[in-house]
């Protein structure tokens, strides 16, 4: 993992002479950290034309009647595997405009793959198990990362200068579940604190 990051950083250095770090702290007004928030940065200078690769596996597994992970960041045109690790069959679907698809009932050991051509949010459900809900965030920037239990993430090697910061999360109390912020990235590092509230999900699903 560290090796992959170094390779990734190296490629950044090839294009930009100056690099900056951005630490984003996502939490509620009460100070509680918010996890599973997708932090993306679009530098005003652009992100280049190289295909985007992320360090985490492009996989949306199904185990114990839930999707794993709850939120997956996928580069545009990326392929995501849907391995079924449960003893029961699943019927994974999405009616999201970003990607409408249906993986009709498939059983354990089967791993269908879906390619996500459009940038956007894909809400995943299982037609058999309504408590299975997950989200795939299809992005067109390599500067994307998901918050963990601390609610705080750091993006490294960003080009300095103006950039757009987006923090998206399912059920975030904001238009399109997204907080958008314009900022100027400076060398060597910047810190952004994003404060937001969460809505109650319509059903109690396993990610909660």
């Amino acid at each position, binding site marked *: 993992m560290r090796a992959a990051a170094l390779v990734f950083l190296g490629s950044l250095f090839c294009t930009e002479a100056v690099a900056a770090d951005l630490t984003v702290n996502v939490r509620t007004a009460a100070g509680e950290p918010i996890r599973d928030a997708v932090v993306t940065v679009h530098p005003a200078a652009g992100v280049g034309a190289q295909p985007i690769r992320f360090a985490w596996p492009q996989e949306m597994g199904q185990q114990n009647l839930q999707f794993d992970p709850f939120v997956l960041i996928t580069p545009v045109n990326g392929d995501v595997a849907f391995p079924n690790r449960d003893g029961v069959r699943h019927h994974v*679907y999405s009616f999201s405009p970003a990607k409408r698809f*249906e993986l009709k009932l498939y059983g354990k050991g089967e791993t269908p793959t879906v390619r996500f051509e459009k940038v956007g949010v894909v809400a995943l*459900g299982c*037609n058999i198990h309504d408590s299975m809900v997950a989200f795939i965030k299809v992005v067109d920037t390599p500067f994307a990362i998901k918050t963990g239990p601390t609610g705080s993430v750091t993006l490294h090697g960003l080009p300095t200068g103006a950039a757009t910061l987006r923090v998206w999360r399912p059920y975030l109390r904001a238009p399109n579940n997204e907080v958008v912020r314009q900022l100027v990235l400076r060398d060597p590092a910047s810190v952004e604190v994003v404060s937001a509230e969460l809505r109650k999900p*319509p059903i109690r699903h396993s990610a909660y």
Partner: protein
Amino acid sequence: MFRRLSTKLAVLYAGLFGAILLVVSLAVYSAIAHNAERMVRDELQASGTVFDRTWALRSQELQDSAGLLSRDFGFRAAVATGDAATARSALQNLRARLGIDLAFIVGVDGNVTTADGRSIGGVGGQIYRALDEGEDASGVFVLDDQPYQAVSAPILSPTLAGWVVFAQRLDAQEMKSLEQLSAIPLDAMVLSRRPAGDWVAATGHVDPKEGGLVSRFIASGLTLKTRAPRDISIPSGAAIALVKPLHSLGESPPTVLMLRYPLAKAMAPFRPLVQTLLITGALGVVLVVIGSFLLAGSVTRPITALEEAARRLKVGEDATVTVKSRDEIAALADSFNSMAAEIRDREAKMLRDAETLAVALDRAETANRTTNEFLANMSHELRTPLNGVIGLAQVLAGLVKEPTQARLIGTVTDSARQLEILLSDILDAAKLSAGQTEVVAQPFSIGAAVRAAGAAFEGPAAKKRLSLAVDIPDGPDPVVMGDPQRLRQILDNLLSNAVKFTASGGVRLALSQTDAGGQPRFRITVADTGVGFDPAMTERLFERFKQADGSATRQYGGTGLGLSISRGLAELMGGTLDGAPRPEGGSIFTLELQLPLAAQAAAEAAAIRGVA
């Protein structure tokens, strides 16, 4: 009130029977009523539970159907992609297949898509808010005064895209099926509260008037937690009602289910029993009246016979009673018969005795009269030779000069005079007894008469060294009508007795006058200081031939006729004569006479003549 004994008994028996019947009937009826009421309460509770089960079951069925639809992939896809036509078609299919009254989709934006395209107006917004709250998206809502039982299921795609809502009408038919599930014929209805606050019966067979009463009942005492059946009053009588609040969907108006059972209905099965009881009771009363009349007759007939016999006995007829029975009345009749016989015997004996007595009395009276006549005649006959003896003795006394002879002749004269007095007394007494004595009424001065009588005894009193006081009131001496000779005879007798029985002291003669009712009443007393007498002997003094003491005659002489004659005369003159011993010694005799004044008598006589 009831004069005849048989009526009294009949009324008594019938009254007792009626009272017992009433008590028994009341007890039976109240037991039945109590039981019926308890049954109704239990059954209402049970029906409430049945309703809960039915409600839950149907709710579950609806929920299942709604869930099934909301999970249908095609339906999800249609809702998620905004394909209203497909969604509506799916809704309509299921609605028709399952017989659901109302089916619609509420979008997350609040838009309502009904199966048949009809609008549900403001209710949609209400339901949307309830669903959006997400607390309990099922319950009752009211659309056009019609309550609906509604369930919802979220449409997930996989995020919330809306809700499927299925609703069933709570209508008369529903209530009917609920009523049919109950063991008792109760009335089921759903009431909803209108914005004005009054409750309106939305379903059930209630006329509006009754509905109004019911809503008033709810309004007055209903808390939505009421669970136990309550007593209410409806136009057709008392009823028991169970009110179950229904869960409202969101802000929908409150609704309640009311299970109501009129108590009159509960009593209906027992009506034949009560009727039978009443008819039997009435028959019983009639039988008791007849029976007690017969019984009372058998008791009173002998009593009447006895009463009849007693009446016969009273008038002296034959009074034998015949009683056939062998009870106490028969014993009484036997006693009565023997008593009647006894009375007859005694009466006969008494009659015989009375006859004997009358004969004896008659004989005695005749003898008495004969004696008196004889005495009167004899006295008269004796007087004539006695007068001869006295006259000749007086003649002899004039002729004889020799003292011894003169003394002997004096003795003859005294003896003859004494004999004459004796004869005179006997004659007077006999005349009085024979009723031959007459008194006259002539005017005389009473004071002068009394004074004269006193004066006559001055000599004899002086001879015995006794004082003689005559006390006549001062003032005019009234002239009265009476018999002065008889008065003088009485006073002579009293004064002679007084002088005779007094050894020392004196005699006092007094006259006093009182007026009683305009008539002057005179009291003449003769008091002495003599021997007196025993008070117990007072009445004996006035009997003929009696003196206070038998020995007195020997000591003082006299016939013992004086007082008897005096009293006889006093009574003949309309007065009284009494004697009494004086406490200080001696005796006092009191003569009371009521004598009219002569002037008054003359005036009255004149008046009578004048009138005549």
